[in-house]
């Protein structure tokens, strides 16, 4: 098959995407496919027209590639593509929408409030902050609604930190999320579709080195965080995390594969869904390939299955 690997683009996760793309290209070549790498830009439609791929492997992360934009375009030009469709992508990309969906489906997610820039500028939402702070309790986590990496995520320890954290989050998006901080363990469950429906892969735990605990940027970086897979959990906790991940995957309408991030609260043992990534990283240090390998699926095996799924599910 001729496979176009879409990567790069101009999102803030361009670098990670280039690394995911390169590794995917490598695997596709070893699988015997004809590979055409495309660094997506204004010429994407023309390039697709020239290349006429049998399938597009979307290895884009962040805005543009993971939010449904590229998927919509691929639907339009009639090229089958990997992973979720436009609506699931846009739901996953916007943490606020995703959390509303999850909560609506009765799934646990940390309490939160979301505001648009307009709410502050036109509706005086700033006046509501004290009430919100009362309800969420400090520390509060402030996040941009749509940003895949750790950029722009801040801890507000006191009320004085909140305005600055909100301004920072608005650097990334016109919507911000203020979320109750759940202290506990960071878990990630990848979901991979297959002949018998979506399956949850072994749970990965990210354990930041002590000194980086409040440094979100360090949390998913090799050497600054240790990754354990399968995570050392009680069997019922593992089962529950996988069950929640599958429920989130279904609720958000994902297909192909996705990664669901959870927190296991210290003390209560409760699990909370944080977010779902419609196109998680596929680099050599990413969590989905790690979980797949723990399940006995090689990287090539993983890529082969993802491509097969894309071709099978494409409308004739």
């Amino acid at each position, binding site marked *: 098959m001729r496979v176009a690997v879409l990567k790069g683009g101009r999102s803030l996760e361009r670098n990670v995407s280039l690394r995911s793309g390169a590794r995917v290209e490598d695997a596709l070549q070893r699988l015997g496919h004809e590979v055409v790498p495309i660094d997506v830009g204004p010429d994407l439609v023309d390039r697709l027209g020239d290349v006429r791929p049998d399938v597009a492997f979307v290895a884009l992360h962040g805005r543009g590639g993971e939010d449904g934009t590229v998927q919509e375009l691929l639907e339009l030009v009639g090229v089958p593509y990997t992973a979720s469709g436009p609506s699931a992508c846009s739901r996953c990309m916007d943490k606020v929408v995703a959390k509303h969906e999850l909560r609506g489906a009765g799934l646990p997610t940390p309490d939160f409030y979301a505001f648009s820039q307009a709410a502050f500028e036109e509706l005086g939402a700033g006046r509501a902050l004290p009430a919100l702070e009362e309800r969420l309790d400090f520390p509060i986590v402030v996040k941009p609604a749509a940003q895949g990496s750790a950029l722009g995520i801040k801890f507000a320890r006191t009320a004085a930190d909140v305005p600055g954290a909100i301004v920072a989050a608005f*650097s990334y998006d016109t919507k911000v999320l203020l979320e109750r901080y759940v202290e506990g363990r960071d878990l990630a469950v990848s979901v991979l579709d297959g002949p018998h429906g979506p399956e949850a892969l072994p749970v990965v735990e990210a354990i930041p080195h002590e000194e980086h605990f409040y440094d979100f940027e360090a949390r998913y970086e090799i050497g600054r965080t240790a990754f354990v897979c399968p995570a050392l959990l009680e069997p019922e906790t593992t089962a529950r995390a996988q069950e929640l991940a599958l429920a989130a995957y279904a609720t958000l309408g994902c297909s192909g594969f996705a990664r669901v991030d959870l927190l296991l609260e210290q003390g209560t043992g409760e699990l909370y869904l944080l977010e779902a990534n419609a196109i998680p990283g596929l680099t050599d240090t990413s969590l989905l390939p790690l979980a797949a390998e723990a*399940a006995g699926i090689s990287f090539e095996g993983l890529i082969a299955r993802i491509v097969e799924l894309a071709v099978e599910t494409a409308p004739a």
Partner: protein
Amino acid sequence: MGHDDTPKRSGARDLERYAGLFARRTQAMKSSAMRDLMAVTARPEIISLAGGLPDTSTFPAEDFAALMARVAVDASAKALQYGPTEGLDDVKRCIAQVMAAEEMDVEPEDLLVTTGGQQVIDLVCKTLIDPGDVVVAEAPTYPGAVPVFVSYQADVVQIEMDEHGMRTDVLRAELERLDREGRVPKFIYTVPSFQNPAGVTMALERRRELVRIAHERELIVLEDNPYGLLRYEGSPLPTLYRLDGGEFVIYLGTFSKILSPGLRLGWAAAPRPVLDKLNLGKGGADLCSSTLSQQFVVTYFAERDWRTYLRSLVDLYRRRRDVMLAALADHFPPEASWTRPGGGLFIWARLPEFIDTTDLLARALRDNVAFVPGRAAYLDGRGGSEMRLNFSGVSDDDIREGVRRIGKVVREQVGLYSTLTGVKPETAAAQNVVELRRKAG
């Protein structure tokens, strides 16, 4: 999972295996999020004030072609061959000319030709620093030195600056504090003229005092002077190397800013025993710097007047600096302040404390403009509300437009913060760089 026939390998163990192989010094290296952000700044549609680039487009292409042809004809075999680790004697004579232009007198034996000035920083650390050793630097310091200090696991003490450069009174106090802790710094790193990133120049009395401190304490000073000849106004100040007489100062020079960074040629002038060690370190690093580049420099100095080209750069950069200063006055809000450099390539701006310039960069990139977030110039997390702006490698129009776009997003955040707090933000107190000048004029 139905894949039980495949031998199970722990992916986690694989990752951990590599993690276990990385040297401890790699753990402190800069976060990938910041690197990822900077990667986007290189896209063509972005006006980047983040670079530190000289404008190489002004070097006449026909001169380049003629000189390279001359190298090929006259010195083909030599240019394609390895050379001595310390560099070609002919290049050292060119270096002596450049240093003489700043009234320094050196012998070829005092010089080591390096792969860019950057290699000097690396070699000095390699030669002097054991893990945990103290290096003293300015606050803020050259962002490119930060990963070098970090990779040698130096403990960096950053000394605040004012408009006269590094505060030598603060330096004395810090050295005394270190004495009390039983720690002796190995060297003091400084960019005394038109500092990168702050754009300030160390006053003559401070220079004398710094050299005095070095002599009293028998302490090395690494004087990084890429910009000394890029002076747009005022009269030149003596280098630390000249004031010191080559006893405790290691001087770092480069062809990058007066000719071309693509050549990757710099040099160190140092006391002989130190130079010998640096030379050994360089042998291990790369045997020798590009002989082809060295031959090019020799030919260039023989066939052209390097000062004429330098004068053209000075005129060009002076104009661009003025364009940037005017644009800052037009577009930045009154809460911001910035330096007015008398030379070099950079202006350093300070915004209100509630603005995080790393996040601001993400916002600015959406408007296709980039700068260097201040944190890149500190090792201790300071600088969060500061930024470095480059004017040398960008056209006048792009400077105006770039500053306008940054000004717009800064104003937007200032406005948003006021909305959130209901108060007009105070101007951040200058803590590290005192007396950054408010607005030009």
